[in-house]
């Protein structure tokens, strides 16, 4: 058990290192000179060379990489070439926004998916079950930006219940935070929830086929109650896995939803950074996203080990 | 080739499975010689190590310690690409004719598979020849494994094994997965073919009566050890080993043995006759 934990941790660290190199190299292939973008259209060649030197982009790649990664260990993501701002501060400001969306969105997804999936499974052979399953099928096929635009159109423009976008930190004005966050969180919740509900359904179906549920049902327990009492724990295992696997799509959906609702999260910072060839900024954000996904997968693996004794033995 | 020299020489072979902690000793120091032209049987119940042993002989597995030699050349620990001398001489018939035939391949390709490596000049006519030898019609070549019965599939398996003209045939419980009614046919076929092609046969079974029908010499295995080696008839009549005796007593009569029926199956047949004949 301890061995496995150590091994998995070792793998995580190695993957993170290789991942950071991949991020670094990937962004170095970008054509377009950051100095040119920073100086604008009529810069002189001398000024360009000077600025390139200042940015350090004229040094050998390994040196640049080591300096960058060394800085990150000290929590220093560098200072943006383009905007002159401290990258770490910039990113952390935006991350605090995106994390709200990711966490609340995922919670909303769970709240939507579990009833939908369980009901679809329990009523599998009935018309209502087909309807539930159909809802999630269609939900999976609708892109998040369409869902977002639809919600804006209905709730912000036509009904005027909530603002169409924007963001306020909950610490600043909680009421306004709730108003502005409802639609984007609902969008993420619907899109992710539709996907999740399919896994919930199949996990629930697997559990329902187990003998103890059949026994419970034969004893006259109603299906839902039997499921809740006996099966939900076992159904949770595959669902947790899926939530882990969904981290990547969740982050991507959040980026798109931020765009639709004009939320100053990590996504908009990323788009601006790419357009401005703000190498350090983009590198920092991409590394952060990649590392988050890797670490989440690691945590899910460990959770697995903790939850399901069978997994422990077979390992 | 010296007739006195064993075809297969096994010296001090052990095989352990698993890593530190829970080690399974599948073979615990085996010494064995098998000679040219012999029909050699290996018996033992499942888990006795007989399958491990023949896999080592076939070079499909590597012993933990000890040496396996084929015609004086070392097999154990030799990389696959240097095993040509063995592969050209040794062929194998598996227990389960379904899982040993690729379901996506036509019979023609299955039988011809061993011919590719030796660049056979005319695989097509060789396949026809082999189909005839194992008693299948030529039309079988264009069909897929699932279109045949279990006995027919084992015939195909045998045809494939014979394709490259091997000198040694290893048969790993070739009839135990088959319906009772066809077992005798397959055993007879093997019997004939071993004679016709002058093969050395290593035949593995959990059923001593089947081995007695085919083999001159037999080795009895129990929990990774070779507890007895000798003439089949001699062991059958005079063995002093209690384990061997229990194997023999599990088969009460010769006609049942020929039909491949064990004591347990007989008992089952008496309880539910209709199922056993199905």
């Amino acid at each position, binding site marked *: 058990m301890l061995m496995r934990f150590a091994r998995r941790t070792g793998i995580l660290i190695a993957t993170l290192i290789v991942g950071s190199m991949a991020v670094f190299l990937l962004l170095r292939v970008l054509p377009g000179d950051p100095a*040119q973008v920073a100086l604008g259209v009529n810069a002189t060649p001398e000024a360009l060379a000077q600025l390139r030197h200042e940015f350090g982009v004229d040094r050998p790649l390994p040196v640049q990489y080591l300096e960058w990664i060394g800085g990150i260990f000290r929590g220093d993501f560098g200072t943006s070439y383009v905007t002159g701002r401290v990258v770490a501060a910039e990113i952390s*400001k935006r991350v605090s926004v995106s994390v709200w969306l990711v966490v609340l969105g995922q919670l909303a997804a769970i709240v939507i998916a579990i009833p939908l999936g369980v009901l679809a499974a329990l009523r599998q052979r009935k018309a209502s079950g087909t309807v539930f399953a159909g809802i999630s099928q269609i939900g999976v096929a609708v892109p998040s930006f369409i869902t977002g635009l639809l919600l804006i159109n209905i709730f912000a423009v036509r009904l005027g219940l909530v603002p169409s976008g924007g963001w306020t930190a909950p610490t600043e004005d909680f009421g306004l935070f709730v108003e502005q966050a409802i639609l984007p969180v609902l969008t993420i919740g619907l899109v992710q929830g539709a996907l999740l509900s399919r896994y919930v359904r199949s996990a629930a179906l697997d559990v329902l086929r187990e003998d103890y549920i059949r026994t419970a049902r034969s004893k006259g327990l109603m299906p839902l109650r039997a499921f809740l009492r006996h099966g939900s724990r076992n159904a949770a295992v595959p669902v947790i896995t899926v939530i882990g696997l969904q981290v990547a799509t969740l982050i991507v959906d959040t980026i798109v939803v931020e765009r639709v609702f004009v939320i100053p999260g990590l996504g908009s*910072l990323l788009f601006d950074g790419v357009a401005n060839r703000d190498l350090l900024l983009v590198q920092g954000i991409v590394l952060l996203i990649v590392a988050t996904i890797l670490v989440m997968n690691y945590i899910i693996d460990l959770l697995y080990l903790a939850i399901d004794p069978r997994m422990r033995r077979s390992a | 080739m010296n007739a006195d020299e064993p075809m297969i020489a096994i010296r001090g072979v052990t095989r352990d499975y698993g890593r530190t902690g829970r080690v399974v000793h599948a073979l615990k120091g085996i010494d064995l010689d098998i000679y040219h032209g012999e029909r050699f049987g290996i018996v033992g119940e499942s888990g006795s190590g007989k399958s491990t042993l023949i896999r080592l002989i076939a070079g499909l597995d590597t012993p933990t310690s000890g040496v396996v030699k084929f015609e004086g050349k070392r097999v154990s620990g030799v990389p696959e690409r240097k095993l040509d001398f063995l592969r050209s001489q040794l062929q194998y018939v598996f227990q389960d004719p379904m899982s040993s035939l690729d379901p996506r391949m036509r019979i023609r390709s299955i039988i011809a598979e061993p011919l590719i490596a030796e660049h056979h000049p005319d695989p097509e006519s060789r396949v026809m020849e082999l189909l005839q030898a194992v008693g299948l019609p030529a039309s079988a070549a264009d069909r897929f494994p699932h279109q045949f019965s279990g006995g027919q599939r084992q015939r195909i398996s045998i045809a494939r094994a014979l394709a490259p003209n091997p000198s040694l045939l290893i048969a790993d419980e070739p009839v135990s997965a088959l319906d009772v009614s066809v077992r005798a046919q397959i055993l007879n076929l093997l019997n004939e073919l071993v004679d016709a092609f002058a093969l050395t046969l290593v035949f593995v079974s959990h059923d001593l009566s089947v081995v007695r029908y085919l083999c001159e010499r037999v080795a009895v295995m129990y929990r990774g050890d070779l507890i007895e080696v000798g003439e089949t008839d001699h062991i059958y009549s005079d063995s002093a080993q209690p384990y061997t005796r229990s194997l023999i007593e599990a088969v009460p009569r010769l006609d049942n043995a020929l039909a491949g029926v064990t004591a347990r199956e007989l008992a089952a047949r008496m309880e539910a006759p209709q199922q056993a004949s199905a």
Partner: protein
Amino acid sequence: MRITPRITAALAIVVVSAVALTGCASGSAAKSTATTATIGLTAEPANLDFTTTDGAAIPQALLDNVYEGLVTLNNDGEIEPLLATSWEVSSDNKDYTFTLADGVTFSNGDKFTAETVKWNIENVKSDKWTISLKSYMDVVDSVEVVDDTHVTVKLSKPSNDWLFRMTTRIGAMFDPDASTDLANTAVGTGPYTVAEFNSGDSLVLEQRDGYWGTKPALEKVTFKYFSDPNAENSALQSGSIDAISGLSSLDSMSLFSDTSKYTIQDGSTNAEVVLSMNNASGIFKDVRVRQAVNYAIDRQAIITNSTADTGKLIGSMVPPTDPWFDSSLVDAYPYDVDKAKELISEAGVEGATIRFRIPNLANVSAAAQQVQSYLTAVGFKVELDTLEFPAQWLDKVFTGHDYDMSIINHVEARDIATYADPTYYWGYDNAEFQSLVAKADAGTADEQVSYLKDAAALLSKDAVSDWLYLESYVSVVKPSLTGLPANQLGESLNVTDLAWS
């Protein structure tokens, strides 16, 4: 089939509370009060430092509001006094003596004097400024402080353009003692200071104490930045902003047709949408081919499709708000497919392939697809290649000159002079044009107008580019909010006149 009563009850609670929550929430929405206003904008500043960071967004927010210059550009495009109450020009048109307003202080309390002016002008000429626009200050030879409120700027040659450029960002007056962290702090003499800058979201201006001039009506003005036009539109519709300055999707103007709720301002700009052709290489070296392109394209139709009929035909690189605008050039090349084909066959370039490399900007993409349609109709093969803006487009087209044709908005004021630079990406090298521009800069005001008229006509004759249209500046404002500038002629969005009626 059976949903247990408990579940039904739970669902009901969730639904009811959700409705209640949204219902309550809408009541508490922060609406602008009588002393604050929120303006929606599209382009967001990268930081607060326009001395080293290019882009229109920073001066748009800060100039005239936070930073002030000696002179400013009013909303009709005329130069007006600001920190300088008056100025005199010497007879040789080379020395400008400014009289400065009295008692001007920076927002940190530091005094603004003639010394400050000298420091600032010299600072632009130093290495501290890196943006290319600083070159407009090259013409300044020296600055002499006469006394605390008088300063003389000596030019190396007469330049009509220089005073105009002093209304732009290079004329902004910084506090010499507070110019170390311009990216994050802005200390100016203007009525507002930057209270908050939330990147990706908004910039908040707050009125400061001790402003030397007339106090503006509003305490607080927020610029809210939207990357998505729908979000901006619905923000105005739902009341979370009070105006959109510079509507980006002009087709959505009809959303705001209710005049009791919205006022639409149709303003003018300097933004020429130019179909540029590489005059230095390829088929567009031939003037006949360039003329053919001008004949082949129905510009009025593009205006209809791309700008909801708000764009204006210009015919050369001059907006109607400049004094040297010549309306006769507008019709120089009417839409005439036969004429175009004739010129193409004369030049012998039938069926030629055009590498049309455009930046990935929505308005450009729409115009480019129409241009492609028109040019295909006269027999060209047009390869549309979309480049990421700004990085790739600057790299390949603007700097590398590796293109046949492109489209971009040229938003800078009085930028006809760029055609006098043979290294500029259009590759136009005409000595006659260059001398006209030089003479216009050195001459009297009247001479400037007549020389630049000739220059514009020459551009048109040579069909150097195809000037598709001049962008309009459409703003949508709540009727009770007044004082939002209608035109976008200078670099600033001056909000000091905003007031609620």
